[in-house]
C-alpha cells in the first residue's frame, strides 16, 4: 500500500540516511558514466562526451539536492540538521548567545509576570461557575459611589426581583475565638444562607448553610476557611459537628471551605449565617451595611439588569429619604479586580515596552553578528545552499535563542511572582499564578521575539552578494548600519517613555507619602482592643471598661499622653452618618459626616490642632449635656460666616452643643479629600448605637520611647480582662500600610524602567563601539592629519548625542500622549508634569553620553600607524 511504502521510505531516509546517500551518489555516477558512453557511441571523443554528459546532468550536487528535497521526511531532516547546526554555532559564540538569552529572558520574564498578574486578576476573573452571571449591587449617592444596602432594602428587593436567580447579602464581622489556645480575634462574614448557592461553591468538607439557618435562633452554625481549619484544628476531619466558641457563643461547625475559596477576600476566616430578621439586623433596619451579591438568570442583558435596578431602586427606597440614590450592578470580576485594574494595565504596557526594547537590543546584536558572518554565508551559498535554506538556518538560530530566552523568562517570571507574593503585601496577588494561558503567552511572546529579531538579520544575511563578502571587505552595507541606528533610536525612545512614566509615578508616590495627614503620627503607639458582646453586653459595662483601661494605660511609664478613639485613622474602619444643623432647613439630604467617639486628650495626643473652643473633659460624661467638636471643614460648610462654637448639631436624636473646632485630618488614605467630621465624647454615644459602633477601643499613646510602651500596653489591658484580643501597632506603620499599593506599583515600574535603561545603554554602547571599529581607518587618518584626541572624542560623542537626542525627542512625544493613561493613578501631579518632562530627558542624554564615552575613549587611543595598516 502507498502509505506503508511511504512510511518505510520515511524510516529509511531518517535512520538509514548514510546508505541512502551512498546509493544516490552511485546512481548519479552511473548515470554520468552511461551517458558518457552513449555519447561516445554517438561519435564524440571521450573528453567531449564526458563534458556533454556533465552539462546535461547539470551539476552532481544540485541533482542530489533536488532528489533529497522530494524525499519523505526531507523537511524534518533539514530542520533537525538546522537545529543541530544552530546549537553548534551558538555554543561557539557563548558571549553572544548568553547575552541574547539573558536579555530576552528579562524581557519575556517581566512581560510574562505582568501577564500572569493581569490574567489572574483581570482576565480570568473569579473562579466560580458561570461567574459572568455574578454581580454585586451598590447604591450610588452624590457623595459616594458604593453605598451598601440596609436590611429592609435587601429583603424588599429580594422578594421583587425578576432578573436574579438568587441573591445573597453579607457583612463583615470580627469575633473572638476562645477555648482554642490564645484568644484570637478573627475576621469573618455574616452571610445569608443563599450565599454559597449564589456563588455555586460547595464546602470541601461538610455542608453549606441551609435556608433554616437564616432564621433567628437557628443561626449558630459556622463554616471555616481552609486556613482557620488548619490553624486551629490541625485539618482534622472530625471537626464537623464540634463546637466553636466565638464571642462566648457556641457555633456548630458544619463545613470547611476549599483552600482556593476566599470570598469576599482572603482575610475571611469563617462564615456564619446572617439572620436578617434577628435582633442584630432589625435593630437598625435602615442602616446601610449589607453588601449584596446576586446571580443573574441566564440571558439577562446588562440593559435589562440596569432597568430593573432603576425601577426597583425607586420602589425599594423609603419615600421620606430625599437622597438621590441610584442602584448600580457591577460585574463581580470588576469588583474583585477593584482599583488594581488601571495600575496593572499601565504596568503591562510598561513591560510591553521593555520587551520591545529587549527585542531591539537582540536584533542589534544579531545584526552585528550577521555582518561578521557574511563570508560564512557567502561560502555556504557558493557550496549549493539555496537562499531559502540559509534563511531557514538563520531563523532556526533565532528560534533556538528565543526558546532559550523564553524558558529563562518563564523561570524568572515564576521566581518574580513568588517574590512579589511574599514581599509585596498586596492580598489580591495571592491568587495569581502562571497557568496555561500565561504559558501560552510566553510561547507566543518568544515566537514573536524570535521572528522580530531573527527576520531582519536573516534577510540581510541571506541576501549577501557573493563577491563582496568573499573579498573579505569588513565595511558593512549602509542598509544594515541604518537598521542598527534605527533600532537604537527605537530603544532610546521606548526607554524614554518608560522612564518618564516611572518618574511620574515616583514623584506621585513621594507626593503621596509627604501628604500631611493632619496629625503627627510619629511616636504614637496604637492598641486595638475589642469588647465582645458576651462580656460587655450593656453600654454601662463598656464605659466602665473604657474608663479603667484608659486610666491604666495613662499610668504606664514613659507615656506622655494617652487617649482613645473608636475608629482610628488608617485603622480600616469607618462610621458615617447623616447629620443636621440646628436652624437650617431640615436634614440636608446629602449631608454625611464621619462620627468619631473619642476620649478627652485625643486631639493633643495625636497632634490635631484645635482651631477654636476647647477639648472634651471628664465632665462630658453620659450624664452631662451633649457636646461635640467639629472639623474645620464641617464648621465652614455649616456656618460659613459664623463661629461654630456654641451652635447645635445632631447625628442622632439628641442635639449637641459644639464646644470646639479642630483641624481636618485624613481618615483612611492619604489621597482622600478631607471629610466633615463630628467628634463626640465616648460616654455620650447613645446606648443602642454604642452596641455596634463603640465596641472597638483604639488606645493611642504618645511617648518618646514607643518601643517600650508598645511592649507594656498589652499587659496593662490584659490586667483588666485577660480574654481580650489586643493588637499593638504604630500609627506610622498603619499609614505606611495604606500606601502599600502605590508603593508596590512604583517599585515594579521602577525595576522595569531600570532594566529598560540598562538595555538601551547596552544598545547605544554596542552601536557606538561598532561605529568606532568601522571608522578605525578614518580616525587614524584624521589623527595623522593633525586632529587632536579631543576632536575624535567630540566626533564620536557627537554621533552618540545625535542618536540619543533623536530617540529621546520621539520618546518625549510618545510619553506626552501616553501619559494620560497614568492620570487615574497619579496623585498630586499632572500627567504632564513639567519638571518630569524636563529632568528625565536631560538625565537620559547624560546617561547616553556615558554609554557612548567608553567606545569614544577607545577611539582616541587609536594608533594612526596600525589603523592605516590594517584592512
Amino acid at each position, binding site marked *: 500500500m502507498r502509505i506503508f*511504502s511511504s512510511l518505510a521510505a520515511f524510516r529509511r531516509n531518517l535512520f538509514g540516511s548514510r546508505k541512502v546517500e551512498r546509493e544516490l551518489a552511485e546512481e548519479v555516477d552511473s548515470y554520468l558514466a552511461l551517458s558518457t558512453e552513449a555519447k561516445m557511441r554517438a561519435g564524440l571523443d571521450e573528453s567531449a562526451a564526458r563534458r556533454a554528459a556533465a552539462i546535461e546532468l547539470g551539476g552532481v550536487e544540485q541533482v542530489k539536492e533536488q532528489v533529497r528535497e*522530494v*524525499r519523505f521526511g526531507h523537511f524534518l531532516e533539514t530542520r533537525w540538521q538546522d537545529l543541530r547546526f544552530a546549537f553548534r554555532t551558538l555554543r561557539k559564540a557563548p558571549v553572544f548567545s548568553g547575552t541574547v538569552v539573558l536579555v530576552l529572558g528579562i524581557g519575556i520574564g517581566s512581560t510574562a509576570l505582568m501577564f500572569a498578574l493581569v490574567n489572574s486578576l483581570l482576565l480570568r476573573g473569579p473562579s466560580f461557575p458561570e461567574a459572568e452571571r455574578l454581580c454585586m449591587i451598590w447604591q450610588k449617592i452624590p457623595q459616594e459611589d458604593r453605598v451598601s444596602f440596609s436590611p429592609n432594602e435587601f429583603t424588599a428587593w429580594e422578594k421583587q426581583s425578576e432578573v436574579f436567580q438568587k441573591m445573597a447579602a453579607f457583612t463583615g464581622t470580627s469575633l473572638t475565638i476562645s477555648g482554642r489556645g490564645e484568644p484570637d480575634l478573627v475576621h469573618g462574614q455574616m452571610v445569608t444562607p443563599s450565599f454559597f448557592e449564589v456563588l455555586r461553591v460547595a464546602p470541601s468538607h461538610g455542608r453549606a448553610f441551609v435556608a433554616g439557618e437564616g432564621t433567628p435562633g437557628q443561626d449558630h452554625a459556622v463554616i471555616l476557611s481552609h486556613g482557620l481549619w488548619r490553624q486551629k484544628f490541625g485539618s482534622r476531619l472530625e471537626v464537623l459537628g464540634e463546637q466553636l466558641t466565638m464571642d462566648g457563643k457556641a457555633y456548630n461547625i458544619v463545613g470547611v471551605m476549599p483552600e482556593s475559596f476566599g470570598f469576599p477576600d482572603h482575610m475571611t476566616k469563617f462564615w456564619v449565617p446572617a439572620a436578617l430578621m434577628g435582633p442584630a439586623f432589625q435593630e437598625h433596619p435602615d442602616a446601610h451595611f449589607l453588601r449584596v451579591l446576586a446571580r443573574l438568570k441566564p440571558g439577562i442583558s446588562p440593559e435589562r439588569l440596569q432597568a430593573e435596578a432603576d425601577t426597583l431602586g425607586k420602589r425599594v427606597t423609603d419615600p421620606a429619604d430625599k437622597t438621590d440614590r441610584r442602584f448600580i450592578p457591577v460585574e463581580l470580576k470588576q469588583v474583585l479586580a477593584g482599583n488594581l485594574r488601571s495600575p496593572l494595565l499601565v504596568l503591562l504596557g510598561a513591560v510591553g515596552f521593555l520587551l520591545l526594547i529587549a527585542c531591539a537590543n537582540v536584533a542589534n546584536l544579531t545584526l552585528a553578528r550577521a555582518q561578521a558572518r557574511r563570508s560564512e554565508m557567502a561560502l555556504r551559498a557558493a557550496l549549493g545552499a539555496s537562499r531559502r535554506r540559509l534563511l531557514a538556518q538563520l531563523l532556526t538560530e533565532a528560534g533556538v535563542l528565543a526558546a532559550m530566552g523564553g524558558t529563562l523568562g518563564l523561570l524568572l517570571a515564576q521566581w518574580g511572582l513568588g517574590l512579589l507574593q511574599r514581599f509585596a503585601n498586596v492580598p489580591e496577588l495571592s491568587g495569581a499564578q502562571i497557568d496555561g494561558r500565561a504559558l501560552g503567552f510566553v510561547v507566543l511572546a518568544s515566537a514573536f521575539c524570535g521572528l522580530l529579531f531573527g527576520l531582519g538579520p536573516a534577510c540581510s544575511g541571506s541576501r549577501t552578494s557573493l563577491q563582496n563578502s568573499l573579498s573579505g571587505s569588513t565595511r558593512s552595507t549602509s542598509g544594515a548600519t541604518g537598521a542598527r541606528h534605527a533600532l537604537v533610536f527605537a530603544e532610546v525612545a521606548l526607554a524614554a517613555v518608560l522612564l518618564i512614566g516611572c518618574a511620574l509615578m515616583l514623584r506621585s508616590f513621594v507626593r503621596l507619602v509627604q501628604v500631611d495627614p493632619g496629625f503627627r503620627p510619629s511616636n504614637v503607639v496604637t492598641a486595638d482592643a475589642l469588647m465582645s458582646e458576651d462580656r460587655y453586653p450593656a453600654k454601662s459595662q463598656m464605659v466602665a471598661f473604657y474608663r479603667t483601661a484608659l486610666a491604666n494605660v495613662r499610668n504606664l511609664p514613659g507615656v506622655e499622653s494617652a487617649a482613645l478613639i473608636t475608629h482610628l485613622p488608617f485603622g480600616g474602619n469607618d462610621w458615617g452618618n447623616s447629620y443636621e444643623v440646628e436652624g437650617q432647613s431640615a436634614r440636608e439630604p446629602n449631608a454625611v459626616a464621619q462620627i468619631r467617639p473619642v476620649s478627652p486628650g485625643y486631639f493633643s495626643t495625636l497632634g490635631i490642632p484645635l482651631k477654636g473652643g476647647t477639648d472634651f473633659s471628664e465632665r462630658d460624661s453620659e450624664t452631662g449635656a451633649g457636646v461635640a467638636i467639629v472639623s474645620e471643614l464641617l464648621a465652614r460648610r455649616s456656618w460659613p460666616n459664623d463661629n461654630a462654637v456654641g451652635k447645635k448639631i445632631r447625628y442622632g436624636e439628641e442635639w449637641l452643643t459644639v464646644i470646639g473646632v479642630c483641624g481636618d485630618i485624613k481618615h483612611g488614605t492619604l489621597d482622600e479629600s478631607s471629610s466633615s467630621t463630628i467628634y463626640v465624647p465616648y460616654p455620650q454615644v447613645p446606648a443602642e448605637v454604642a452596641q455596634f459602633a463603640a465596641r472597638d477601643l483604639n488606645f493611642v499613646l504618645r511617648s518618646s520611647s514607643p518601643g517600650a510602651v508598645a511592649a507594656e500596653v498589652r499587659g496593662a489591658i490584659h490586667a483588666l480582662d485577660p480574654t481580650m484580643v489586643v493588637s499593638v501597632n504604630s500609627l506610622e506603620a498603619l499609614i505606611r500600610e495604606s500606601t502599600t499599593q502605590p508603593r508596590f506599583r512604583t517599585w515594579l515600574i521602577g525595576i522595569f524602567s531600570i532594566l529598560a535603561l540598562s538595555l538601551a545603554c547596552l544598545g547605544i554602547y554596542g552601536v557606538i563601539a561598532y561605529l568606532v571599529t568601522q571608522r578605525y581607518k578614518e580616525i587614524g587618518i584624521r589623527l595623522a592629519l593633525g586632529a587632536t584626541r579631543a576632536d575624535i572624542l567630540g566626533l564620536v560623542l557627537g554621533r552618540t548625542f545625535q542618536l540619543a537626542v533623536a530617540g529621546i525627542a520621539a520618546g518625549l512625544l510618545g510619553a506626552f500622549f501616553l501619559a494620560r493613561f497614568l492620570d487615574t493613578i497619579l496623585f498630586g501631579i499632572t500627567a504632564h508634569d513639567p519638571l518630569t518632562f524636563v529632568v528625565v530627558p536631560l538625565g537620559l542624554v547624560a546617561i547616553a553620553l556615558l554609554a557612548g564615552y567608553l567606545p569614544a575613549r577607545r577611539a582616541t587611543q587609536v594608533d594612526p600607524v596600525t589603523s592605516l595598516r590594517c584592512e
Partner: protein
Amino acid sequence: MKKKIDLLQGTLHLLVLQALAPQPLHGLGIAQRINQITNQTFEVKPGSLFPALHRMEESGWLKANWGESENNRRAKFYSLTSAGRRQLERETEDWQRISLGIASALGAN
C-alpha cells in the same frame, strides 16, 4: 528538430510508468525510452527524472534493484510494482479522458 515541450507535473509520472511497462530500465534508459516512445517530443533531464524516480519509488509504484547494464556497468534498474501497474492503468484512463475532452474542445469551432 521538433520543438521540445516542458513536461507537465504528473505527465512525467505517466511517461515513466509507460516506459517501464515492458521491461526494467536504469535512469538513462528511462530517459532514452521516453524520448523514443514520444517521437523525440520529450527530453527528460536528470534534474527532473531522478527526483521523480525517487518519489515514485517512495510511493510504492516502482521498485529498484542494482544490476548490470548492457555494457557491464553497475546501474540501478527500476521496475513497476503491481501498485505501479494499477497506477499506470488509472493514469492512462485519466489521460485519455482529458485528451479526448481537450480534443473535442479544440474541435468545437
